[in-house]
């Protein structure tokens, strides 16, 4: 477990985002137990209160559930994970499109660029 924390942004948010991405790509499969608050706090070297807040936020998204005395588990509702994966991908696209449009790229140029990059990538 590794966390790169940027102290200029809310730390709990970065922990939430890390787990969301990891759950979306199946690093933590449905039903899997997540590390404890203390373990995450130790790995990220942050206050356990901050991790507790991140876990509450994750629970609110429906991606994880906490069972009293047992720990926090990834949801078994595959639909929720699929939606989250989609949502995360969309956020990445919106961010990318914003930046690339700022450079004055048109939709056609963007499509051409994506096709070119895809080709280069496959070679």
């Amino acid at each position, binding site marked *: 477990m590794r966390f790169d*924390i940027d*102290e*200029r*942004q*809310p*730390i*709990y*948010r970065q922990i939430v985002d890390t787990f969301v991405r990891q759950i979306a790509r199946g690093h933590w499969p449905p039903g899997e137990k997540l590390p404890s608050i*203390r373990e995450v*706090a*130790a790995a*990220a*070297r*942050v*206050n*356990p*209160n*901050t991790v507790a*807040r991140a876990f509450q936020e994750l629970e609110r998204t429906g991606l994880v559930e906490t069972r009293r005395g047992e720990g926090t588990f990834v949801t078994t509702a595959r639909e929720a994970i699929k939606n989250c994966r989609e949502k995360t991908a969309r956020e990445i696209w919106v961010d990318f499109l914003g930046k690339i449009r700022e450079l004055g790229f048109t939709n056609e140029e963007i499509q051409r660029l994506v096709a070119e990059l895809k080709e280069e990538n496959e070679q």
Partner: protein
Amino acid sequence: MTFPAVKLEKVVKRYPLTKALDGVSLTVDQGKVVGLLGHNGSGKTTLMKIIAGLKNPTSGEVRVFGMAPGVETKKRVAYLPEVNTYYNWMTIDELLNFVKAFHPDLNLEKAALLKTFMNLKGGEKIGSLSKGQQARLKLVVGLSRQADLMLLDEPLAGIDPPSRARVLHALVGEFRQEGQTILISTHEVKEAEPIFDHVVFLREGRKVLEGEAETLRAETGHSMEELFGEVLE
């Protein structure tokens, strides 16, 4: 009703030539880790001593768990001064037993774990310890007490930079008593900032900025270290 761990109302501490504190109001909620940040001479130590009941304010009101500082609050508060106050002729274990005579809440089992963590041997004489080892010993003594409020004045002073993050994490993590409130004064913000729930910036005896660390990050896009530079330089 639960009281805040600390509540200060317009606290002033005047010395013949200076004002160490110039009207500080502050509330510290129970269970929080609070950073008291400021340069040397900003009033951090005076503030801690007033909360610990070792100094009286010139004016203003101080409440610790809802009570005026005194015998009752001292049972619940552990204050670790920056300076070393131990006898050089004692060994580490002798010191722990000595402190336990004054503070029955000192937990010797926890002290044993902390000694191992800090790489200290019980039979060593305090006078023969290095500055860094003395700084670690101070933390062993303080953290072994079952205090509801822990006041740590510059706990990183004397601790070598590579171990600081590890020591700080032990403070708020594995060695922290459930629900304990911790007030840490420091000017080494970089290493300490990920452990703070709340920060208070002091300058020349006045509070210049305070807030939840996460809220300040979201609102300003700055780390606590950057804010320290901005509001205190």
